[in-house]
């Protein structure tokens, strides 16, 4: 229904109420059920589990009904959809689940209701959460959103294959490449010529931003300073991209890496065609539980390798709950967000979906560790992880990084050309 027809219907309803009903029944109607609508992302954000959390909330809060809306398989598709809805100041959706890269942009645009008045000041609210989420959800000192679940990029690997070939877990990218070549050669001799050494995301999707940043950060370099200004070290960035291209040349990474999207990595790893894979935390659950997974019980998880002489660095992700500035039920929506971002909800998401908790204690919770034993070490990885640049223009920053990275991986540009282009374009945006 359009805004106009909705308004027309509302006017008609009011007129009817005034003309035909008693004043007290009109009051009873408005005091009745509150309807909230929640946008909860795509399949990877597990709307099925969010629905469970909402059902819990409805059971405890009679009179509140919550509808769920899903959409957008990838972060940038969701960003497009939400930009359209929010630019139109649509009040139909009260609560949004948004990617960690978006609070700055959305809050800057005036689309998100500051939550301070409902949940308390930022300095207090974020104390129990992992610190990295305070950085990305507090904009200009205001609470822009509350964390739903954490995420970070991990290195998944085939435990069985490393054991079979008696090779240790790699600590650097060079070690990883060497290990992969050995395993690939041995497997090829045994008739399995299609084993990929490493699968990572080179298609121009949000994941490619991390593909650019991982080997750059891994050298101990910073992409931006605290104020969000670009601090790109061009030789380090070139070296980072060359790390991936070198692996393509060695046959560790497949040639068409610039075509690989997040689900491709998941599906090919699940099919047993990949030795090492870089992916988000959610993938664990897919490898472990999906009916078509060929690698059940054969998967290990490691922190991402470092560059030689550098340190391990990962890309922090995660999803947040935010209240629309155009919602007509902000107080009720904020109350629901508080529930969705509670330790209890975080635990449910961790136990049932292997979604990484946003609270430190949940990582070592007995029920959680039973489901995902590696979670006990994962908290340290998330805490040490790095945020992609926070910018009100993140949409454009991301586009420049992922498009150029993908073009370099497709070898239509040299790493030096690509880095020069990134530098020239971002220097105007991140200053």
């Amino acid at each position: 229904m359009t805004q106009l027809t909705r308004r027309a219907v509302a006017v008609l309803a009011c007129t009817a109420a005034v003309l035909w009903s008693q004043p007290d029944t009109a009051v009873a109607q408005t005091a009745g059920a509150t309807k909230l609508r929640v946008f909860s992302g795509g399949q990877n954000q597990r709307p099925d589990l969010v629905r469970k959390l909402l059902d819990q909330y409805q059971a405890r809060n009679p009179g509140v009904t919550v509808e769920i809306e899903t959409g957008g398989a990838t972060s940038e598709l969701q960003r497009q959809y939400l930009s359209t809805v929010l630019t139109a100041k649509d009040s139909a959706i009260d609560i949004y689940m948004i990617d960690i890269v978006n609070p700055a942009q959305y809050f800057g645009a005036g689309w998100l209701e500051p939550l301070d008045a409902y949940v308390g000041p930022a300095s207090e609210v974020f104390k129990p959460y992992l610190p990295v989420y305070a950085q990305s959800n507090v904009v200009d000192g205001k609470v822009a959103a509350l964390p739903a679940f954490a995420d970070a990029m991990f290195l998944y690997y085939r435990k069985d294959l490393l054991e079979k070939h008696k090779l240790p877990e790699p600590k650097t990218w060079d070690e990883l490449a060497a290990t992969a070549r050995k395993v690939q050669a041995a497997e090829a001799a045994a008739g399995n010529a299609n084993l990929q050494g490493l699968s990572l995301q080179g298609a121009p999707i949000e994941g490619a931003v991390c593909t650019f940043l991982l080997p750059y950060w891994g050298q101990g370099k910073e992409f931006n300073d605290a104020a969000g200004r670009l601090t790109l070290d061009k030789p380090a960035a070139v070296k980072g991209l060359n790390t991936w291209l070198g692996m393509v040349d060695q046959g560790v990474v497949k040639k068409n890496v610039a075509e690989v999207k997040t689900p491709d990595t998941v599906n090919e790893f699940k099919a047993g065609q990949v030795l090492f894979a870089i992916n988000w935390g959610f993938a664990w659950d897919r490898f472990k539980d999906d009916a078509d997974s060929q690698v059940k019980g054969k998967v290990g998880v490691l922190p991402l390798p470092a560059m030689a002489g550098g340190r391990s660095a990962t890309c922090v992700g995660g999803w947040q709950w935010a209240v629309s500035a155009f919602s007509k039920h902000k107080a009720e929506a904020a109350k629901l967000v508080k529930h969705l971002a509670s330790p209890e909800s975080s635990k449910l998401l961790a136990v049932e979906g292997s979604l990484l908790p946003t609270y430190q204690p949940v990582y070592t919770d007995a029920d959680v560790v039973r489901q995902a034993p590696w979670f006990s070490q994962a908290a340290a990885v998330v805490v040490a992880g790095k945020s992609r640049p926070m910018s009100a223009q993140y949409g454009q920053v991301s586009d420049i990084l992922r498009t150029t990275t993908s073009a370099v991986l497709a070898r239509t540009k040299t790493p030096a050309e690509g880095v020069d282009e990134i530098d020239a374009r971002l220097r105007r945006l991140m200053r």
Partner: protein
Amino acid sequence: MTPPPRPSLLERLRDPSERLLGALLLAPTFALLALIVAYPIGRLLWNSLFDLRLTGGGVPRFIGLENYQLVFTDPDFWNATKNTLLITVVTVPGALLVGLGLALLANLPFKRRWPVRLALLLPWALPLSFAGLIFAWFFHTEYGIVNDVLQRLGLAEQRDPTMWLLKPGWAFAAVCLTIIWKTSSFMALILLAGLQMIPKSLYEAAEVDGASPWQQFWQVTLPMLMPSIVVALIFRTITALQTFDIPYTMTRGGPGNATQTLAMLIHAHTIDYLDMGYGSALAVCLFVLSMGVSAVYLRQVGRQAA
């Protein structure tokens, strides 16, 4: 004698003169056109004069022609314009040739015409973005049918498959091929309608004069078909200048921005970057380009009619 008193407005409306009646009857059309054509275009021009970045949450700031200055110094704009014009130059004649062939084929005296017509209609009935997604799968390096067929025919090495959508030239060709496949059926429909308007007697007369089928095509079919061809070309050219769906779903403008069109650049700036002012300026440029091309065509048509 005094002249009769001027009738009141109400009386004039009740018994309107021919001129007034004409104006009255046209008024709703004009009002509608003003609402759906004049207003949006006016608003677009107006917006293009402002710094209208929604990401800042600030108030729109009047900046005159600054957006246009940025547009003309933006390498992305020139790249997208080049791509758009290239796509137009390649796919419009391409679709015309394929469409003409299809129309001639469909015009043959088949016993059952509907399967032919249906086959002709199908690509046209398919949404553009579907076509883009389907062909993206066709051209996928590993899972695509194109490389599979080439390998089966022994024309390509399995070890070293062509990465169609990752090489600028191939990606451009793949996008153009998809557009031609998708749009030639529309061409064929218009041309088929034109073919059926050509009286049989002309062919009979040509045959009596001893014209070969080839001569009949050049001397009868093509001249008689000209009006349909021009109409089809105008439509196709304008939609080609606005190409968006197929490259967007197939390549996302990639690799790099090798297949990014003007419409995609406008989309990126307005929807992704939320820079409405700059996006509007880009849209005005596309509008001017479309108007220019249409004007050239219409003058040609006018000359032919005269």
